[in-house]
């Protein structure tokens, strides 16, 4: 699941990328250690390295669609799409896309939200990559995958810069949260960085 497992162990670029990401405590609510990628975007070399690592991995996989999740997926997705010759499809919050859409609900900690995609953006049989900056529970990525599959695309992989299991979970063991994350997707997930050891645990721990 992580870059190290996918043959990127020791890639010297990963260290610079990791260092460029700022952790902001207690955002958006107390207890969350927010992985802020905006500082990565200020480091031209680290930002370029991030895109290059994804491009190196995906350029020969026959991917014709890069789907980016609003809004931070928009920051990484288009550059990857341009480099691998794929189209870019934005997956958006409700009522943003102007044309006919399909939508998919997903669960938040409290309540639900919806993700939308334009009808006709992709054709059945296309091979797709889903991009977001960060994965926590995998709920948003799962909704993205369902949208693409409903339109007949094959989702080759989901790719995120950072993997961070949801911190506001009542019971926690690091490895089980990662497993939860994988199960939520049921498919291949590539994460450049594993930040699971940096989350702040609330509630009881269970061995």
């Amino acid at each position, binding site marked *: 699941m992580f870059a190290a497992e996918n043959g990127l162990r020791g890639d010297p670029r990963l260290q610079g990328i990791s260092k460029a990401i700022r952790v902001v405590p207690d955002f958006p609510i107390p207890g969350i250690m927010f992985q802020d990628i905006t500082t990565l975007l*200020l480091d*031209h070399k680290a*930002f370029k390295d991030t895109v290059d690592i994804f491009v190196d991995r995906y350029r020969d996989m026959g991917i014709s669609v890069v789907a980016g999740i609003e809004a931070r997926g928009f920051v990484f997705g288009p550059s990857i799409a341009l480099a691998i*010759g794929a*189209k870019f499809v*934005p997956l958006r919050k409700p*009522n943003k896309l102007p*044309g006919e859409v399909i939508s998919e609900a997903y669960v938040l900690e409290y309540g639900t939200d919806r993700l939308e995609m334009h009808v006709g953006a992709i054709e059945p049989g296309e091979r797709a990559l889903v991009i977001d900056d960060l994965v926590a529970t995998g709920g948003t990525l799962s909704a993205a995958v369902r949208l693409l599959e409903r339109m007949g695309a094959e989702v080759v992989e989901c790719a995120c810069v950072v993997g961070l299991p949801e911190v506001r979970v009542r019971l926690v063991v690091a490895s089980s949260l990662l497993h939860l994350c994988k199960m939520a997707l049921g498919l291949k997930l590539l994460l450049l960085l594993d930040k699971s050891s940096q989350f702040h645990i609330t509630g009881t721990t269970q061995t």
Partner: protein
Amino acid sequence: MASADVKAQDPRIAGISSAIRVIPDFPKPGIMFQDITTLLLDTKAFRDTIDLFVERYKDKNISVVAGIEARGFIFGPPIALAIGAKFVPMRKPKKLPGEVISEEYSLEYGKDVMEMHVGAVQAGERALIVDDLVATGGTLSAAIRLLERVGVHVVECACVIELPELKGRERLGEKPLFVLVS
């Protein structure tokens, strides 16, 4: 007003223009919405869009590309990466996690607020502001004010599309505006 010298339009512009879809009555009746998502599906036209901006800005010593949420996030980063600049997202309220400065701006009905992270840019830097479209110029003006408040020199605003009848160019005053499709 005397007309400007007629320049040959770059041959790539036609493909870019025809890749943009117009959606009538969105978000409300009477508005002809310029939808750039179809441009993003046309790999050549999207590539050409970025190339046209990069060609214009790569030798202008720009160290900051500021992109306006959310469609400015699609065009800004590829430009920033190609010209060696950093990318700074200008966001709706409460999205940026760190300390921010904010700027209020007017909408057709009411107001909104735009935010930028403190410390993202330094006084004296040269910046480009990117969005998909300029209409009244209200959003771009707010972005200019945010950057100028911290001592950044805004070299130009760049958009894929301009709606000239909404007079955004006038609202930007002396600040140059460059667009591909008018």
